[in-house]
């Protein structure tokens, strides 16, 4: 796994209602299934409402994580809504080694032109499309979670799906059909995320 002894930091960008916070929480749940890592998952909170740009964060480390301040220089950035690329928040604090994963129909190259960042570290997946095809509406957090799992590397997909399934069964106990749709979305994005 590419997560080593230092703390790996992840920043999620989305709009209120797209599930960035939920994705960060689900990612943390997946990571603890490995039994190898300590985690944190926390949202950036403000009086934002549906549609407003929001962020959520993860920390992952083999050592206990005691730090309780914000993430400034993330190792991974996950963007749930390509319209957010217009703001410079998405690239804020990026290191040259940081990887950025974007929900877009564009190519990595096209995105790199927009945000002036190394194409090789830009990964793209059409998560909105996947979400509409699997869940029936554009809630891109599940497919972006699948894409992140792939890019971070060495995280078992089946284990991840199981973890998410357990969590969602609890949350959507009155709507079990939502669970399968989301699991399919994760699997598809895991396969489809690319760097081109």
């Amino acid at each position, binding site marked *: 796994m590419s997560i080593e002894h230092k703390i790996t930091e992840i920043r999620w960008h989305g709009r209120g209602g797209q599930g960035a916070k939920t994705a960060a929480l689900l990612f943390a749940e997946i990571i*603890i299934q490995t039994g190898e890592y300590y985690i944190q998952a926390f949202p950036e909170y403000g009086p934002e409402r549906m549609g407003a740009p929001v962020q959520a964060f993860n920390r992952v480390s083999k050592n206990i994580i*005691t730090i309780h301040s914000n993430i400034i220089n993330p190792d991974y950035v996950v963007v749930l809504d390509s319209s957010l690329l217009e703001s410079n928040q998405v690239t804020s604090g990026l290191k040259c080694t940081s990887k950025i994963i974007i929900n877009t129909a564009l190519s990595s190259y096209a995105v790199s032109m927009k945000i002036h960042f190394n194409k090789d570290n830009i990964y793209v997946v059409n998560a909105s499309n996947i979400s509409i095809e699997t869940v029936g509406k554009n809630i891109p957090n599940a497919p972006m979670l699948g894409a992140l799992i792939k890019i971070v590397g060495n995280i078992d997909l089946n284990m991840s799906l199981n973890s998410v399934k357990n969590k969602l069964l609890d949350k959507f106990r009155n709507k079990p059909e939502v669970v399968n749709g989301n699991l399919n979305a994760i699997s598809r994005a895991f396969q489809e995320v690319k760097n081109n």
Partner: protein
Amino acid sequence: MIRPLSSKGKLVAKTGNEIAAEAMRQIEPDVVAAYPITPATEIVQIFSQFVADGIVKSKYIAVESEHSAMSATIAASAAGVRAMTGTSSQGLCFMWEMLYIASGLRLPIVMVAVNRAISAPINIHCDHSDTMGARDSGWIQIYSESVQEVYDNIIQAVRIAEQTKLPVLVTMDGFIISHCMELVEVYNDDAVKSFIGEYTPERYLLDIKNPYTLGSLDLQNYYFEHKYQIAKAMIDAQTTIVNIANEFTKCFGRSYNLYEKYMMDDADMAIVIIGSAAGTVKMAINELRSQNIKIGLIKIRVYRPFPKDNIAIDLANIKSIAVLDRSDSCSGAFSPIYSDIVSSLYSEGITTPKIISYVYGLGGREITIEHIKNIYKTLNQIMLGKDQKDCSIVHYINLRK
């Protein structure tokens, strides 16, 4: 492989609010009366779902205000049952008069407070102004650094409250802990239930065979004695808290004390802090220690009763100390923790350490490792006896003056 410390535990990922609700599920108090307030709302939401699902036998009173939340909690406790509540910020302010009544009537209530700034201006983010304002209300106050500590502190609080007959406030930092998911070891239900035991009050209002009056008018000839009883109980509570912490360690593995010493054994400089930022300070100290800098941390866990005697001894040989308060007293003098530390040292006749005050993080203002490293620089200058450009005692971190 990360493993639970206890054979009775398993590792889960939970936020501070979720773990507070989880602890409450395991404690299963007879009555919970609460009113929602950001950022503590989730606690009562999750708990009322437990009630709605029949997972707990607790009764949930969806009161119409925090004043009534504390009133109903007090009443339920006086009636003879285990009663809990939770709140934050303005909610705690609205409870104010009832806080003193809870301790004055010696009711073993446990309350979870999620720290949040106080209006005006309105702000929903973390600082400690709310619970610091209640620091002399006769409540035991236990601050938590992490989600794990929130959980462990709430479980211990039930025992502490019932043994000391004092209400206990367990706090966590708003959003920073309340909404932060961390890896946390939860213990199995039976182990928690057996640790807290059954509640058997000596006197209770519903015991109609032994009727009595509670909440009487106490005039000049008795009020002072009753207040002294509370002050005395607060001092005696220190031993109780430590004993219960030791028992907790035996049951579940994690050790707790009135305060935590981090890298203090050979320290020349020290930072004193409370709450979640202690974790950030630990990271900074790790980095500084790797450069052979002898700096340590005292993280106060039990702020009331204030562990004045031991803390004074532990700080006696430190050359320079920075006390970090996440609240400002607006008194024209010093912030709460700073005042307590200085008084503790002075009352023990210890005047060697130079002590400076830092106010940080009001309204959720960020504090980072870099800020802590800057504090070290100042502490080092003071230790070396070098003149400071800013020689004032009170400093503000990350403030645009």
